[in-house]
């Protein structure tokens, strides 16, 4: 009978899974839910299939990330009204997560900044745990590009890809 709690758990899981209406299916993208710095839950499926999404994995202790964030903010201001969104996924663990909101404020970020200390989004889209690491997703749910690291000038390539993705309806 040692396995009975596991069987019970599996059964509950199966029942709940059968009743819950799953999200994230429309786009075909693996979905995740994280809290933003305001404590609001945010899911990838809130944007997938509607917007062009740039998932930016970053951390408060990562120098190149600090360089990239203002560039992403500029792109978001320019193309946000046309359907482009940046989801900045912080990889900070509990010891440094307190620095996330001040860094976001310092860089004037207005797009959602999400907290992923348990690597829930990271396991899906950044298994190499690189920072910064960008994933550009089209409106059709297809991953257009994934790119690790940041070198000044990368923002021009990202902008060209965003413009092309926005042009595809």
């Amino acid at each position, binding site marked *: 009978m040692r396995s009975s709690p596991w069987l019970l758990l599996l059964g509950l899981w199966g029942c709940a899974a059968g009743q819950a209406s799953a999200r994230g299916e429309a786009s075909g993208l693996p979905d995740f839910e994280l809290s933003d710095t305001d404590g609001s839950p945010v899911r990838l499926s809130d944007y997938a299939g509607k917007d062009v999404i740039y998932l930016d994995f970053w951390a408060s202790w990562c120098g190149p990330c600090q360089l990239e964030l203002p560039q992403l903010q*500029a792109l978001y201001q320019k193309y946000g009204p046309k359907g482009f969104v940046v989801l900045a996924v912080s990889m900070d663990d509990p010891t440094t997560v307190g620095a996330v909101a001040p860094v976001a404020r310092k860089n004037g970020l207005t797009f959602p900044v999400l907290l992923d200390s348990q690597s829930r989004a990271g*396991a*899906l889209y950044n298994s*190499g745990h690189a920072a910064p690491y960008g994933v550009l997703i089209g409106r059709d749910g297809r991953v257009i590009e994934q790119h690790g690291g940041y*070198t000044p000038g990368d923002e021009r390539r990202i902008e060209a890809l965003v413009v092309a993705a926005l042009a595809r309806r």
Partner: protein
Amino acid sequence: MRRAPLLCALLIAPGSAAAFQTELSGKPLTVDLTETADVSYHVDNGVVAPQFLPGSTAQTPLFNPNWDPTSDNYVDWLNRFDAQLSWGPWHAELRFDSAVFANTPTVPQSYAICVNGLTGPCENRNLALMLENRYIDNFELEKISLNYLGDHLDATLGDFYLSYGRGLVISLLKLDALGVDTTLRGADVTFHWGGFTANAAAGVTNIVNTDEATGEVAPDPEDRVVAARLEWRQPRIVTIGIDGAGFFQNPQTALLSPWEPGAPTQSVPLGWLALGSVQGEPFPPGAGPPALTSTGNFSATIDFPHVWDFGKLYAELAHQVQAEYTANPLGGGASQQSTQGNALLVSADAFLGPATLLVEFKDYQNYIYPLQSSLSSVTYPAFWQQNVYNNPPELEEIFQEEDPSYTTYGPRVRLDWKLSDRVSPFASAALFQNDTAGWDYTITDGYLGVDANWQDHRSHAVVSAGRRLEIMNRLSPTPGDPYQHEWWVQYDAVQVLGATYSLELEGLHRRFDYDALLGHPWSWGYSYLSLKRSAWTVTLGYEYTTQDPAEWRSANPNAGVAWTISDHYTVRAFGGGREAGLRCINGVCRVFPGFTGGSVELAARY
């Protein structure tokens, strides 16, 4: 956080969209495969101490206890294969690891006697013991999980990471730069209902069994962990939570301690579905492990993300109960000792126009952290140090070495002032008192710096310098005298060169004017210069230490290249030396051996 900026810039990151996508029963099915292979030739581990002391002869050898050939002249091939499959709300993932070693060091004949007894010219018994758990080929299904994410339910069977609050209660994480990747293997269920979230998790701890830095291997601790958290949130206003976790060390793992060199051994698999194994040395029948602990951590958290739009406030209050069972090594009864502790962590940000003020305060009273796994610190030193189960914020600069401290308290304040869109100076001051085990240890720490950018944020520089004074009355020659006095400067600057190139210089220099432990001043640091183009990074580095020139190589030049060959392939090559020393990432620290040699890493994604 030594070298973290460079590491994060160079981390292998395969190029653009490569996942395979099709349809199954009308739903998209995505398959994502990533393969990473790393081949390294280790010339040595930076130890320059000779095998024999001056005056040694063939007839009367004088062994140098600092001589260490355990990492010399061998090759390793470490391979990692990740496969992910997503279908609607379902997501499955597995990771298969392999480690193969060639030309590995063996115990020199002159030291063989150390294995069989303590007689004879044996100066370093640990040398033989260290090699017992190194360089063992292993092929293993390292991680496997199945996740379902619905509207109200998020459930995982298999391996998962888990942390609550700021890590006081539980923090099982992945920190690649330290070789840490600890998961719970079991079940993790989270329900969301309105503003409520309830999480429950249970399982056994699962580590990555081969330590890349040392070639050391260890079995999974399989310590039992149960945890639960209940949270209520009103977005933008408040999040309140209570949580708890129980940790129960696995007696079978704790038994794997060296009892007597050369004692009968038993084969212990390195993990679930692993082809590799170590030779454990269980205690004789009737004798228990030296100590086993069971720990319960509980906390309440409150988080105000906006305090009248002027800032934010976070507070966590934790309580800990720990029972330690100590067995009589010769058999017979065991004794039990219980301890209790409390911890308070408060963090507040104030946003006052151009100024951001961060105030943090910790008060940990006999609160034991980090909680270690049941792996023996003697048998598995590389793993014991890194595989920890909770890890609260120290509020220190994360490159600072921290002694395990259970009773410590004090504030840290940091002010950032945005003078313009281009220039932001900052300053920080901290004062901590550590009374663990009667240390009477006072730390004062402060630094000043400036963060500047130009060319529309494309060029950037952060420079800071600080001073740290430690007075440990228990160990200082005279109460009130310094125990350690340190100056440091840290820099990271990027200059754009034209449209496609950039130059980065980053480094850290630490100068210990006074060190009561070593008895002489010393310096430690590194500097890296990188030329970057979008697909290319070429780096020249120099690492140095004068801590102990008789034992460690003082100067370690190196060079590296990272190249994104195509959308599917990335390669990184490194040659030269890295110094030994403590490396800290996000507050978790471990001592790395030095490395001199070359390595090539190839990552492919399909």
